[in-house]
């Protein structure tokens, strides 16, 4: 028995002599299986040494402890096989199933989630950019116009377009929220990348190793829970919430963002420092302060609340508040809740509420 164990111990070291198949730069498709299996073998090696030391010191307790802990190596091996199977299943079946139901890219769950997140980010910027350049900025600029009459040193100014500041202020507030949504959505993209390039390929093997020993089982369980939570739960959550939001938008009949050109105010940007001729007494704009039109501001406000509001406000609110802010928060909450549950399953007793706080 002892000789067999010693031989096994010698053979174990050979597994570390395998050529490195980890790519030089760990990117989404990182190879996590090799380090995970090596971690399990390393734990087995440590336990074998402990078991043999039990003979050396003639300590039955030490041998019993080592024997008991060896079950954890088998449990670890089971975890590895389970994760390999889950990843393969997600690539071959789950992602395709999600793609069939919701549309979108096909690949493994991480690639799918990344694509969803990046596409959403691009779509958000497209809408925000169009809104800003076509509506918000012209409105703000128009609101700044004032008519001036200057005769013999006396002057009279009339800020006839000043009321447009009201819809402009609303749009400024909205833009702030839209940028917040974009920040959160881009953070989600980077978090998925972090999970696939660091959490799973690095933390999982370390966690599996630690979990094989009684005293470090808690820390190991926490690391496994974080790795699994962010690598499996989080991307699936991203795909699911995106799909649900997409379906809901279709059901509710929320149109795509895209007001017609006529829905935007017309404002000519006079960029030269000084007016060059008498023609420039006025500017080419929907609101001319010299007209003294009392309904100018109301007319511009109606761009947000009138007929064009359906194709302007509704899609924006849905795109940014539901698809942007709400779903990203939901994804993080689902993941952290799952991590909490997984951590207790894997034997950890550490509070991860700190991670939840930054959500």
């Amino acid at each position, binding site marked *: 028995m002892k000789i067999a164990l010693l031989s096994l111990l010698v053979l174990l070291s050979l597994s570390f002599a395998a050529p490195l198949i980890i790519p030089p*730069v760990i990117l989404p498709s990182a190879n996590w299986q090799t380090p995970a299996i090596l971690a399990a073998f390393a734990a087995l090696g440590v336990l074998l040494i402990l078991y043999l030391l039990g003979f050396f010191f003639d300590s039955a307790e030490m041998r019993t402890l080592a024997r008991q802990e060896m079950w954890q190596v088998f449990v670890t091996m089971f975890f590895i096989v389970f994760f390999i199977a889950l990843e393969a299943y997600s690539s071959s079946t789950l992602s395709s199933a999600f793609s069939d139901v919701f549309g979108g890219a096909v690949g493994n769950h991480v690639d799918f989630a990344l694509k969803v997140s990046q596409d959403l980010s691009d779509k958000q910027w497209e809408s925000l950019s169009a809104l800003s350049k076509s509506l*918000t*900025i012209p409105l703000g600029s128009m609101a*700044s116009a004032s008519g001036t009459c200057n005769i013999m040193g006396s002057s009279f100014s009339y800020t006839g377009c000043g009321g447009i500041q009201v819809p*402009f202020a609303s749009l400024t507030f909205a833009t702030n929220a839209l940028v917040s949504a974009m920040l959160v959505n881009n953070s989600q993209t*980077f978090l998925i990348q972090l999970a696939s390039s660091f959490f799973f390929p690095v933390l999982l093997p370390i966690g599996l190793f630690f979990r094989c020993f009684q005293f470090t089982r808690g820390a190991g369980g*926490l690391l496994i829970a974080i790795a699994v939570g962010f690598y499996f739960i989080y991307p699936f959550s991203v795909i699911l919430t995106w799909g649900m939001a997409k379906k809901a938008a279709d059901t509710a009949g929320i149109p795509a963002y895209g007001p017609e050109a006529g829905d935007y105010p017309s404002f*000519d940007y006079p960029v030269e420092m000084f007016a060059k*001729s008498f023609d420039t*007494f006025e500017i080419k704009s929907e609101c001319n302060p010299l007209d003294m039109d009392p309904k100018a501001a109301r007319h511009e406000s109606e761009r947000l609340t009138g007929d064009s509001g359906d194709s302007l406000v509704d899609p924006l609110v849905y795109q940014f508040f539901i698809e942007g802010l709400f779903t990203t928060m939901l994804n993080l909450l689902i993941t952290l809740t799952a991590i909490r549950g997984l951590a207790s399953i894997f034997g950890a007793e550490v509070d991860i509420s700190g991670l939840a706080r930054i959500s």
Partner: protein
Amino acid sequence: MAITWGDMYSLSMLSAAVAAIMMGLAYAIGRMFDNPKFTVWAKTEIFQVAASIVMVFLALFLVGLVGLDSSASFSMDAGWINAYSSGTAAYAHPAIKTDDNVFQVSEKYLQNMAYFSHQAVRGSRAMLGAMDEFSKYTRTPCVPPWLMCLMGVNGVNVRPLAGGAVFVQTSNLMLYSSTTAYLTVLAQIFFLKFIQSGLVVAYLPMAIVLRSLPFMRQAGGALLAICFSLFIVFPLLVFVESAFWNPYDWVASSTGVGGKNVLENMNDFVGIEGKESQLAYGDLFFGTVSGADWVFKDIPEGYSGNKTIDYNQPLIMFNAAAFLSSVFMFTFNITAVTAAASVFARLLGSEVDLSRLVQIV
């Protein structure tokens, strides 16, 4: 007087000697009064002194391994993780050398993160400044110009780019988040420096003495656990992160504007590698200055040629990466340190809860 790591060995031995003398005195008192409680207690506790010495020397060995003790003959360096990932080779602010030890790699990695976050701060501030200036540019009528504005400023005054003020607020938001990210990285650097040379150094010898006293054993074990988790786990975590998480790579692989990636966009925009673009403010007035990164005046031409507004997209992405790399990672690191301290403490028969450290973030 600064305590060096070399002194730690002497201090630890001295502490062990003090603890052993205390045990000896207890044993002598027990013999003098013929009280077996004292003699048995002294015999039992002397093993705890031995156990503490072993733990402290193990800790000192690990401290040497991570490079905290420069006189250690065996230590880990960047070459260890470069075998698995070329991540550390990608840093340039400053560059990480293969013979840098764990603490040096960790510090340089954090400096790279600080540079990254600072670039986000600069980008946000540059956007804030540009939009603020654009929005305040006023166009005044001067009629007729060929007669030196003899008829005064009659007509319409307008700030043609006043609408740009909308991005002043969003830039403020980004400036806030990027500054938080920057400060968090700086906090990590100083946290690392504190570990490297702070008061924690004195805990190890103290832990030996405390662990040898029956009523103070838990406190001594807790001190040892804190030392383990702070000296070993925190720098090791940052060390490993440096190889496997590089936000520069990610922003460089994200598409920005103008056919460039996000990193190139940011370098152009904040002018760290191309300061001349900042001079293009003159475009507002004359429209002839080259380096049109700041051009705002193309808006009327189909609302498509505005580069400054379009730079918001890479800026938002860059800010998100900076926030995640600093605030999120710091929270994660502290959570891991808390878990490690708890595990070590349990191993030493005491309880430690460092979860309040997360509140630093």
